[in-house]
């Protein structure tokens, strides 16, 4: 009986807390500044590290310390990490959890069931999304002006970087399992911003999808940009070492951590790739 009452009480407290948060949202047009924030997604990790007040962000995901996918490994060492499991996240007593829309649904449901506020951010599929995500995370952390300023700076830098190119060399993105990125993906937009034309468009691939090796060879791109293989072995990545691909790859362009998330660091990826293009044209 007492247990039931307690459960009821905690349930109604949870409802009250949600209501309070909702009211704040309506009143201020923004979240009240959450005191303890935990991020469990690589991309929200990096955006939160850029925008949070000192002490506001409590923990990031373990991937934030992985050099292959994170651009902010050194900064991430200042925070404790979680592996994104509901139990360890809950024990950090967060006011707000930042997660990606592809975070395991069961984890998100469990956290919400425990009364934790979870904000879901869609991974960016375009360069325009980068600015939007900066604004969104700024707003969620209670620093909308900071988010707006960073987004505006990003957009100005991007506009300055966008190259006016007369003849665009044809490039293909090629990842494990023969996947490629089309014009409507973040990597595809990085490619175009750096002054390349994407070969995927020629075979009617607009989003991400599988491009058979045969079709890639047939398209004969000026260069192929591949991912950097992970340690250990996988059959998925063996295709990147296929002898038929050797002749197509020119220069040393690879997609690295700068390409993974929609943070202002994509500007570095664009600048590096534009250098690659100029070197290719000088040949």
């Amino acid at each position, binding site marked *: 009986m007492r247990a039931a009452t307690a459960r009821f009480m905690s349930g109604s407290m949870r409802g009250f807390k949600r209501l309070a948060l909702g009211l704040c949202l309506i009143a201020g047009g923004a979240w009240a500044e959450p005191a303890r924030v935990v991020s469990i997604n690589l991309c929200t990790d990096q955006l939160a590290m850029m925008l949070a007040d000192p002490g506001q962000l409590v923990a990031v995901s373990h991937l934030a310390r992985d050099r292959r996918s994170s651009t902010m490994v050194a900064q991430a060492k200042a925070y404790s990490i979680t592996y994104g499991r509901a139990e360890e996240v809950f024990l950090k007593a967060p006011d707000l959890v930042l997660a990606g829309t592809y975070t395991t649904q069961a984890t998100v449901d469990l956290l919400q069931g425990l009364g934790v506020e979870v904000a879901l951010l869609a991974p960016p599929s375009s360069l325009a999304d980068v600015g939007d995500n900066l604004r969104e995370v700024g707003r969620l952390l209670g620093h909308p002006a900071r988010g707006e300023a960073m987004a505006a700076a990003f957009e100005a830098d991007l506009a300055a970087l966008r190259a006016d190119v007369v003849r665009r060399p044809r490039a293909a993105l090629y990842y494990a399992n023969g996947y490629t990125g089309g014009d409507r993906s973040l990597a595809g937009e990085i490619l175009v911003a750096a002054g390349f034309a994407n070969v995927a468009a020629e075979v009617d691939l607009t989003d991400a999808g599988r491009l*058979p*090796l*045969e*079709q890639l*060879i047939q398209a004969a791109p000026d260069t192929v940009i591949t991912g950097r293989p992970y340690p250990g*072995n*996988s059959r998925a990545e063996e295709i990147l070492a296929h002898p038929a691909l050797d*002749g197509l790859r020119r220069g040393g362009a690879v997609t690295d951590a700068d390409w993974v998330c929609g943070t202002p660091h994509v500007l570095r990826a664009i600048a590096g790739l534009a250098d690659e293009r100029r070197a290719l044209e000088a040949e």
Partner: protein
Amino acid sequence: MTQPLLLGLLAILVAALFAASLLIGPAALGLVESLSALVAGGPEGDAVTLIMREVRLPRAVLGLLIGAALGLAGAAMQGFLRNPLAEPGLIGTSGSAALGAVIALQTGLAGAHVLALPGLALLGALISVALILAIAGPRGGSLTLILAGIAVSAFAGALTSLVLNLSPNPFAASEIVFWMLGSLTDRSMVHVWIAAPFILLGGLVLLGLGRGLDALTLGEDAAAALGVDLSRLRLWLIFGTAAMVGGATAVAGAIGFVGLVVPHILRPLVGARPSALLPASALGGAAMILAADIAVRIIAPDRDLKLGVLTALIGAPFFLHLIWRMRRQLA
């Protein structure tokens, strides 16, 4: 049907399927264009030549070799155990070879030495065949054979999953499916050179066992009286099947049921003589894998459908049919 006629017909079928395998793919190439690129070659870096020589040729050659390996290994095992249910996939040989291959790849041994990948696959297969023969040798009976096979398969499969789950490579864990079902997508000439020596060597060994296996159909005592050295026959059989299945599995994963279905169809046509069944099963296996690999490309061109899915769809009903016929013996 006389043996030369049957082998001739099978060879024509295999040749036709091999040609079809070379001509079917996602890049729409003309018939004359692709064949001349394959044989004569174009200028340096010509796309059609690259596609034909580096993408389609290794795929077709591997289909041929791996099919032959699985068909021949199945026929030889069935001849030795005098049991139509013995098959590399069902008794865990392929699964153990896959475990050896996965260990070679994930420990980095495969990168350190070119022979490590097929060598460890061979070792895995060797251990499992020896184990199965020790448990369910000539006097073990079908039930012992199948039960021991289930145990070995499950054990090898679990260890394969474990090794792949522990890999630092994020793609490795999703490749459990490949190692359990097999595929020939995007294999290169490198893979042909890895697998071919082992498969050819094992093939020579197994084809040489025909007379001994023929004698064994009369019973062990009669075979011994005819001058067959049974323990030597057993050793060669273990080595031959392990080399063939190891080489095949190291590059294409475990493909099941080929060694069950093919000898089963061909046995009535050769008069149930193992020496005649061996070469026929090699050709039949090659035809089955080439046909299955063409089918996966036509049914779902953008999906990388696994070969083992198709062979199991055909093979599992066959297996049930065999059990149905043998159920009195099994009971």
